[in-house]
C-alpha cells in the first residue's frame, strides 16, 4: 500500500525540485537592474495609499466561520456515503438528523440577520 504513496511523494519532490531549477535558471539568466519605478506595487495608475494591511469588517468573519463548520459537515458525508450500502435506512435517518440540526442552525442565523452582506 505504501508503494502507492511513494509515487506521490516522489512526484512531490520532483515538482519542488523542478520549481527550484526554474528559479535558479532565471536567477542566472535575467538582467538585474532595479529602479524605483519597478519596485512600485503598480507600475501605472493611481498612487497606492497606506500599506496592504487594510482591515475589513468583522462581519465577514461569520462567512469564513460558517464555511469551516460546513466543511467539517461535508467531511462527515464521505464515510457516510461509502458505508451507506451496508447500513441502509438507519444511516439515512442518522445523517438526516445530523444535517437537519445544522441546517436549522443556518436558517436560524439567516433569519436573525447574521448573513447580511452589507
Amino acid at each position: 500500500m505504501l508503494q502507492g504513496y511513494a509515487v506521490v511523494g516522489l512526484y512531490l519532490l520532483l515538482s519542488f525540485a523542478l520549481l527550484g531549477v526554474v528559479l535558479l535558471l532565471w536567477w542566472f539568466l535575467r538582467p538585474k537592474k532595479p529602479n524605483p519605478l519597478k519596485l512600485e506595487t503598480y507600475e501605472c495608475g493611481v498612487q497606492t495609499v497606506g500599506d496592504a494591511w487594510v482591515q475589513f469588517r468583522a462581519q465577514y468573519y461569520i462567512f469564513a466561520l460558517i464555511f469551516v463548520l460546513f466543511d467539517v459537515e461535508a467531511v462527515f458525508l464521505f464515510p457516510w456515503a461509502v458505508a451507506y450500502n451496508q447500513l441502509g435506512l438507519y444511516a439515512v435517518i442518522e445523517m438526516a438528523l445530523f444535517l437537519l440540526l445544522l441546517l436549522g442552525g443556518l436558517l436560524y442565523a439567516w433569519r436573525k440577520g447574521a448573513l447580511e452582506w452589507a
Partner: protein
Amino acid sequence: MVTLTHYLALSALLFGIGAVGFLIRRNALIIFMCVELMLNAAGLAFVAASRYRGLLEGQLTVFFVLTVAAAEVAVGLALMVAIFRTKRTTNVDELSGLRG
C-alpha cells in the same frame, strides 16, 4: 524498524513544544495556535496507537477531535474578534481589566 515508541516520543516532543509555547507567547492568536499544535500531537499519538494495535477506535477518536478542534477555533476566534472590537489588541498582557 519504526516502533510505537518512536511515534509516541515524537508526539510527546510536539506536545511539549506546544505547551511551552502556550506559556511564553503573548499574542492570543499564537497561544491558540500552540493549543492546536498540542491537539495535533495528541492526534498523532492516537493514530499511531491505533495502527500498532490494529484497532480502528484511535482513528475515529482523531476524527472527532478534529471536528471539535474546528468548533473550538470558530468559537475562540469569535471571542478574539469580539475583544478586538473593544480593546484593539490581542496581547494578553494588555487585557488587564481583570486582575489575577
